Each structure stands twice: as structure tokens, then as C-alpha cells.
């Protein structure tokens, strides 16, 4: 059933509406587990749209297998999605920096508060992202280390290539995931693909993980696929490769994946002088799980992340 979570009247005869689709069993026992799936916080991140569609389609094909409640929030930032804008169009504001929101605050904070209040009570929440337009990510789950004990068992069910546990930095406090975790709703951040695109194979991979998790939690009794165990970041080291020069990044690798130590990752070139400004090689043998997509780089721009095991 499609419901309105929170809405705001826009100046000229239009409403901004946050919608959710609640899927639940025909006969309720009152003991159903509840999963919330949120996406569309950034208007340029679109993989979550396909994931939402596919969950609803599969559930509708086999409603008899649904034993719990699934709340799907496909557009946390509907104006951003409709206008192809990462942030909230009128304010240039990052929707994922205003949580947990404020019922008496500005529009974005009011909306954020409405969303958070609606999700509270879920047994688990997935916050699905698609990186941004600058870098491409392999399917991964990201956890703040202070929540990792609680979240890692869930993260391992997600069929992700990689689980990245990172130390907390302050800015994350204003995200949906951080806020929900601190309000008692275990929340995983899923990152995959690149902005403004849908990477079908990544979506399918994560969908298998979502259905597997729902089966483990007793929400779904239908068929699921075996999931792969992810690489856990704390078992090795993550190396960041950044631009040392401003220029144009030309990737030397077709895709993410395994690289040898010293493998050529790409070059930063200077088109007007016809020379290479920076030659980038992998500092370790490992897996490239992030790679630059947008070639224009300023000094400091992220070019790649490589994970290397401890051996």
C-alpha cells in the first residue's frame, strides 16, 4: 500500500511528498519483523530505483512468501530525483547532512524528521546509495566502526563484494544511517555503481543479498540464492590514491577488480602541453573497489581505492 510519510506544500500548487510502499502479509500475527529500504537521498543516485522496483515486483509475484513487513522509501529527496540534482534543488543542500532533522526546522530538516520518525521501529534499515558522478564503487556495505559489532552480521548477508568498516568522522553524524543507528534502528549503508546510471549487475547482486537477509530474518520464505562472503576491510588495508596534480585523469584499467602491486591505474595528463603530470600505479596487490569516472580532477581528488589483504 502506498502511503504518504510527510509532505510540504510548494509555493505554486504542488506538493513535495515523501512516499513509501508498505508490503505486508495478508494475515498479520503482530510479531512480524520489519525492514525499511531507503534510497534516493541524492537525486543523482539511481541504482536504488531499480532495487526498489525489483523488490516490489518479486514480492508481488509471490505474496504468499512474505511473512514480515517491508517498507520501501524510493525517494528521500524526490525533487532531486525529478530534476536530476544531487542535493535539494532550491537550497543546494545535501539531504544526507540534515538528519535526524527537526520538526520545527527548515523544510529539509522537517522532511528528514518525518522520515526518521516513520522508520523508527524497523528491525533493520538499508540506505542504498550509488556513489556520485565522480567515482564508481563495487557493491559494498559501509559501517561506522562504533556500530560494527551490531551491524557486521547483517552486512555479511548482503552479497556485497566488500564491507568497509571505517572510523567515525564527525560529518557522518548528520547522515540518515548514523542517526538511525543512534536511535536504535540497525542501519546499513549500501554503496554501488556510479551516479546518473543504473548498473544492473550490481543491483541484481545486492538484490540477492536483500532477499537472503530477509529470509534469515523470517521476512521472506521464497527462493533465494547463495551469497558470497564479503571481504572485510579490517582484515587488510585500504589505500587511497589521490590526484597530486590538477589535470585530466585517463584510466588505464577497464573496471574495478584485482590488480598487482605496481599495476598501472591511470595517468593525469595536461592536454595543452601534451605531457603526463602524474603516473598512478597500485601501491599494493589487491582489489580496486573504487575508480574515478569523471576525468576532470583537481589536486586531492580521489582516483581509486585499493584494498590489499594482510599477507
Amino acid at each position, binding site marked *: 500500500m502506498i502511503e504518504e510519510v510527510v509532505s*510540504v*506544500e*510548494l*509555493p*505554486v*500548487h504542488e*506538493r*513535495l511528498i515523501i512516499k513509501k510502499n508498505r508490503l505486508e502479509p495478508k494475515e498479520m500475527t503482530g510479531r512480524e519483523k520489519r525492514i525499511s529500504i531507503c534510497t534516493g537521498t541524492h537525486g543523482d543516485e539511481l541504482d536504488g530505483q531499480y532495487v526498489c522496483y525489483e523488490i516490489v515486483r518479486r514480492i508481488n509475484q509471490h505474496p504468499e512468501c512474505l511473512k514480515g513487513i517491508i517498507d520501501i522509501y524510493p525517494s528521500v529527496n524526490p525533487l532531486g530525483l525529478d530534476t536530476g540534482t*544531487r*542535493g535539494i534543488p532550491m*537550497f*543546494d*543542500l*545535501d539531504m544526507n*547532512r*540534515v*538528519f535526524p532533522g*527537526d520538526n*520545527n*526546522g*527548515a*523544510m529539509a530538516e*522537517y522532511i528528514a524528521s518525518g522520515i526518521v520518525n516513520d522508520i523508527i521501529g524497523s528491525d533493520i534499515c538499508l540506505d542504498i546509495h550509488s556513489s*556520485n558522478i*565522480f567515482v564508481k564503487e563495487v557493491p559494498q556495505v559501509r559501517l561506522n566502526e562504533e556500530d560494527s559489532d551490531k551491524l557486521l552480521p547483517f552486512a555479511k548477508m548482503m552479497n556485497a563484494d566488500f564491507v568497509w568498516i571505517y572510523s567515525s568522522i*564527525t*560529518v557522518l*553524524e*548528520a547522515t540518515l544511517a*548514523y*542517526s538511525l543507528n543512534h536511535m536504535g534502528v540497525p542501519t546499513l549503508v549500501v554503496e554501488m555503481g556510479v551516479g546518473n546510471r543504473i548498473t544492473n549487475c550490481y543491483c541484481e547482486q545486492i538484490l540477492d543479498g536483500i532477499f537472503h537477509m530477509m529470509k534469515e530474518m523470517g521476512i521472506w520464505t521464497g527462493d533465494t540464492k547463495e551469497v558470497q562472503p564479503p571481504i572485510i576491510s579490517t582484515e587488510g588495508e585500504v589505500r*587511497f590514491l*589521490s590526484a597530486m*596534480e*590538477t*589535470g*585530466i585523469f585517463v584510466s588505464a584499467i577497464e573496471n574495478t577488480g584485482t590488480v598487482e602491486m605496481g599495476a598501472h591505474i591511470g595517468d593525469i595528463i595536461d592536454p*595543452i602541453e601534451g605531457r603526463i603530470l602524474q603516473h598512478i600505479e597500485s601501491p599494493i596487490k589487491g582489489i580496486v573497489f573504487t575508480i574515478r569516472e569523471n576525468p*576532470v580532477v*583537481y*589536486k*586531492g*581528488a*580521489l582516483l581509486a581505492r585499493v584494498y590489499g589483504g594482510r599477507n
Partner: protein
Amino acid sequence: MKKEVLFSLKGLYREPFEIEGYRFGGGEKSACIVGAMRGNEMQQLYICSQLIKVLKELEAHDAISHNHEILVVPSVNQYSMNVGKRFWALDNQDINRTFPGNSEGDTTKQIAAALFEQVKGYSYGMQFASFYMQGDFIPHVRMMETGYQSASLANLFGLPYVVIRKPKPMDTVTLNYNWQMNGTNAFSIYTNSTDAVDDKSARQAVSSVLRFLTRMGIVKYNNHSGYIASVINEYDLLAVKTYDAGFYRRLKNPGDPVKHGETIAEVIDPHEGEVTSQIISQTDGIVFFAHTAPMVMGNEVVYKIIRRMHE
């Protein structure tokens, strides 16, 4: 005065991005003043330009006290200002949401880290700031409640109000917050304009900084004593919201007294021209913040009122 480049970043085809600092006096790091950090902060840049002009004259007349250094950084983001963008032009990141920065992080984090390295360690830090809500304020000094804030020091600016704000998660990555956590007494100074230059309030801001510097013995300058400020907690301000969306007719300005039950704004249907709702004050008080845009959304904060305050 010593003009120097505090940070430089090569552009792709643009001239290098440079953060320029203007150093007055010498010796102990006494006061640092930072202006426009976002591309739309014209007023903040203008205030700094006027302040630099006065400080040059004071230095020429030997009116900077011995063993006191003042650093003024008028613009941190002219790359955005020059192309009509509010945030960092390539990736839309807000520099004032990346402090204390990271010298090995993304471009904006590198900028923040380089700036913070230059501006930290001063006894007093002042930033001409802008607010994320569109509207006019009574000129005031704002401090974060970090445990290190000192309202009595803020009073020395001689502005009518000192506002103490309990930091939200998104505030913890601002310059002001990080200054305070690093031992600098940090103040944000708000005038009643951002995108346009308001000469009168710019003069008031310049005077307030000179008043503060004089009272701290950093400069020798004779100006009016200003106000003994009323110290208010941001959470004690009454937020007045709209019911409907449409054209907005503001009936009160910042600083105006209001009576309980008085009509303080009207909302007009954008197609039919009828007044759809009147906004009624729920308290006696003084208008502290007033919405400025010609239109409003539903449930939008249009006023903040200092409760039970009289002229």
C-alpha cells in the same frame, strides 16, 4: 600590511585558485577574521574589504598595538563566486562543512585543512557567516555552545544580540566549531544580507569588529560603545511557520516589536490572488529573523521571535 598567498591550487584552464591573507601588526597571534567562504557571500566579502581598508589606515597611523598580529582572509572561495556558484564549483561541496579538513583528502578538505592550519592558534576568531535559511536577521554575534564559549566576550562586539546555538551534527564541521574546539574564542557575525551588499549593516559589522579589537587591546581606535547585548539561546526563539504556500507578504521586519495575536504576514494564492492565510504572532516579542523570498512553502519557518522581549 603584508599580503600573502595562504594556499594555492592549480586550475585546469583557470588561473590558480589562491586564498590570500592580509597580515597586520606582528607578534602574538591575536585575531583572525575570515570572510566569504561561499560563492554567494558578497556582503561578507564586502565587509572584509572595508575592514582591510580601515586596518591599513590604522597600521599607517601606528594604531595596531605592539605584539599583536591580525590576519584577515577576505575570500576562501572566489573560484565559485566568479562563476556564480555557491559551493565548490566542480563537486558542489561546501567548504564550511569540511573543517578541520584533511590535507590528504578531497579538494575541499585540502582547502579547509590548509586554511585551518593558517587560521588556528589565534586568540580570537571571527567569521562573517551566512545562514542556510533565506531571510534577514537582526545583526548579532553567534557562538556555538561547545563548553568553551564565552557570552561575555561576545558582548564586547557591541551588537544588540548574542545568540548561543547548541550545535547540531552538521555544525561540528564548520570553521567556528573547530576554532572553538582548538582553543580559539570563535564568533560568527551575522549582518542582514548575504547575496547583496548592504552598506549600512556592513559598516555596523566593521565597527563591531574594531570595537572588539579595541576592547581587547589589539588596536587603538575610538568608536561608539555600541550595545550591551541581550544574550539569547537559539532554542528559546519562537519559530513561526506558514500554514499554506504561495506569495508571501511580510508585515514585520527584523527588530520590530510584535504583539500576541497580531497579524505579522499573509500568504496569497499564487493564481487567484486571495489571501489564503494570515500568520498570527503567538507571543509578544521582537522579530529576530524574517523570511525574505517572495514566495513560501507550507510549514516553512518565516519568523523567529524573541519571546517576551520589549524594545
